[in-house]
């Protein structure tokens, strides 16, 4: 009953209307227009388990990062630039010499052959390599040992983590026959809608990692803004029931436009692929499993941070999380999903094999973010109950009495 009243309140709000408009516009200008007239396979790539290719790619990448002393890592799915101390740099240098079979002088020459470029910092050049070759007959097992140790030194989440090597360094262009096979997989194995559902989720995952925070922050801050919070605080209802009901109402209402988009996407697929055998359920099941954790997390974070601090703080924090998650996601647009990725990317209706290869990571990430969401909403219940009883009132991150200002 209360759930229905909360849904009604959300559905009538301007924040929800704006959410719907942006969501539908994003869907129309990205997914819908991409799929209009059928999918374009383009010049696809595929991932192959080619040890020479892997070693070559990883060696050149490591050489560049060593020369720049800037190693890009994604611990827990988030971008981090690692700068090693001299001792560790020397160890990496040793590995590079071992893999290239060079002495000090030859190694200096190799280093000098790198292409220098600047990324924002005029006094900090970075280096790129592409032509450095492994020494003949280098053992792949030894290579894996070196990569594992390098990843450990970098704190994990680097490109050299053994589980990432194949996906990152062993991509090759498809030939025409392979492209035809890919299309056949799209039609026969994915039954069209399976592939389209992945593309649908790719776009909507981005939206659902940011937009819900606005609606969640609005609803959570609304009682105080409307000077109604004390009337509600003194009601009989338990804090858990109120916060969880509102959370459920937020998630349910915000999923409505996504479901409508699923229906439109399915109708579009039926029209575009007349005569093909389509899977009529996957356009609903896959997006629900893929996108719901994004919605659950963004909403829970919005509710919690607004409850403890304020709506602008919640939006600010979520924008940072979203920005980092999109940077991370854009590194691997085609299904190479990390275990802690909030935004799972697969910006292609095909390439089913890559997605399946990362299926374990995908499932892990979806469960991980669902669990995190439940933890956050449990904390929100605690915070609400504490505020209701006169604790934690007026905590702010920013402003005159903000925590950040106090520390400063």
């Amino acid at each position: 009953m209360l759930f229905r009243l909360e849904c009604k309140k959300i559905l009538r709000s301007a924040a929800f209307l704006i959410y719907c408009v942006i969501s539908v516009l994003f869907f129309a200008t990205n997914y819908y227009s991409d799929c209009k007239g059928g999918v374009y396979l383009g010049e696809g790539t595929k991932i192959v388990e080619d040890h020479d290719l892997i070693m070559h790619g990883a060696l050149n990448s490591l050489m560049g990062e060593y020369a720049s002393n800037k190693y890009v890592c994604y611990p827990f799915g988030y971008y981090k630039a690692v700068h090693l101390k001299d001792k560790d740099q020397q160890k990496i240098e040793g590995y590079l010499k071992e893999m290239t079979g060079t002495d000090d002088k030859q190694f200096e020459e190799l280093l000098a052959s790198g292409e220098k470029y600047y990324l924002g910092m005029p006094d900090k050049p970075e280096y790129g390599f592409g032509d450095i070759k492994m020494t003949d007959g280098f053992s792949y097992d030894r290579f894996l040992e070196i990569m594992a140790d390098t990843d450990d030194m970098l704190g994990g989440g680097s490109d050299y983590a053994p589980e990432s090597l194949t996906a990152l360094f062993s991509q090759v262009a498809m030939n025409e026959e392979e492209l035809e096979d890919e299309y056949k997989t799209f039609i026969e194995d994915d039954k069209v809608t399976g592939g389209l559902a992945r593309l649908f989720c790719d776009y909507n995952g981005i939206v659902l990692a940011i937009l819900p925070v606005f609606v969640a922050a609005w609803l959570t801050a609304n009682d105080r803004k409307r000077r109604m919070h004390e009337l509600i605080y003194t009601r009989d209802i338990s804090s858990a029931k109120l916060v969880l009901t509102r959370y459920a109402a937020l998630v349910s209402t915000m999923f409505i436009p996504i479901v409508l988009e699923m229906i439109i996407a399915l109708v579009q697929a039926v029209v575009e692929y007349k005569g093909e055998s389509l899977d009529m359920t996957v356009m609903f099941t896959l997006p629900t499993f893929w996108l719901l954790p994004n919605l659950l997390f963004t909403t829970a974070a919005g509710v919690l941070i607004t409850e403890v601090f304020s709506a602008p703080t919640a939006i600010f924090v979520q924008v940072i999380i979203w920005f980092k998650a999109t940077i991370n996601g854009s590194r691997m647009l085609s299904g190479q999903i990390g275990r802690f990725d909030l935004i799972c990317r697969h910006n292609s209706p095909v390439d089913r094999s890559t997605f399946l290869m990362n299926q374990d990571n995908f499932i892990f990430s979806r469960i991980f973010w669902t669990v995190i969401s439940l933890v956050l909403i449990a904390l929100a219940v605690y915070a609400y109950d504490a505020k209701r009883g006169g604790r934690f009132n007026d905590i702010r991150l920013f402003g005159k009495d903000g925590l950040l200002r106090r520390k400063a």
Partner: protein
Amino acid sequence: MGNNIIIRNMNKFYGKKQALFDIDLTIEQGMFGLLGRNGAGKTTLMKTLAALHRKKDGEVIICGIPVEKAKKIRSMTGYLPQDFSMYPNMRTDEALDYLGALSGIPSKERKQRVESLLKKVNLTEHRRKKVKELSGGMKRRLGIAQALLHDPKVIIVDEPTAGLDPEERIRFRNLLCEVAENRIVILSTHIVGDVESTCENIAIMDEGRILWKGTVRELLENARGHIYTANIEKQYMSQIKKEYIVTGMVTQADYTTVRLVSDAEPDLPNAVLTEPDLEGAYMYCLHSNGCNVKGGEE
């Protein structure tokens, strides 16, 4: 289970600043007035009773239940805050229905309660209006209706008549008296007239302390012998205001009749001792407790 509110040696702090000092009060069934100037600590005390604030020490027992048991306290109290509103775009009946749902009242029963309460507070014809379309007085009446939704034993009303026109103020006081039957109603106000016409028992607060508690009659008795009237020529008025606590003035053609509070007989030619009114008694109480109340001082 007692049918009263017992407060013993209760202290309340905001951080390091003490807001309430050793509050000791027993409130029985019926209307109880808590009178005090702005900033006296009335709202803090009201919020502590409504389980919205935590006391530091002492004891607060509401109808036999310690205030720490917030859930039980919430189920037996109705609260109308000083500065409240409701979702502006909700209809009047919807707002009540929503708050009723939060009180856990079943749908069917809620519908009946909303109907009867709207009738009681004379808002039936405005039930379809949005909250933002209601006048200040209507909103206060809606506020009382929401406080009564779950039929509480205790109603806490904080500064309910501030900003209302005289007609709405009288209507609101009468409404409070009606709902006080078989209940404890605590009316917190800085307007003496609100208490005078509705409450038998009162307490006076200032700077977080209870200065006085008892019946209205006792307060009037307490001031007996300290309230005077005098006819003052207009040119002496500013001097009189500086020297005495002036509680009332009636301007005549060439003089002004003033009511004033004084410890001893004023040194004025035509000052006569008069029957105390509640406003004068209240001012005398503040004055005799060392509060600066030279109300007429310019």
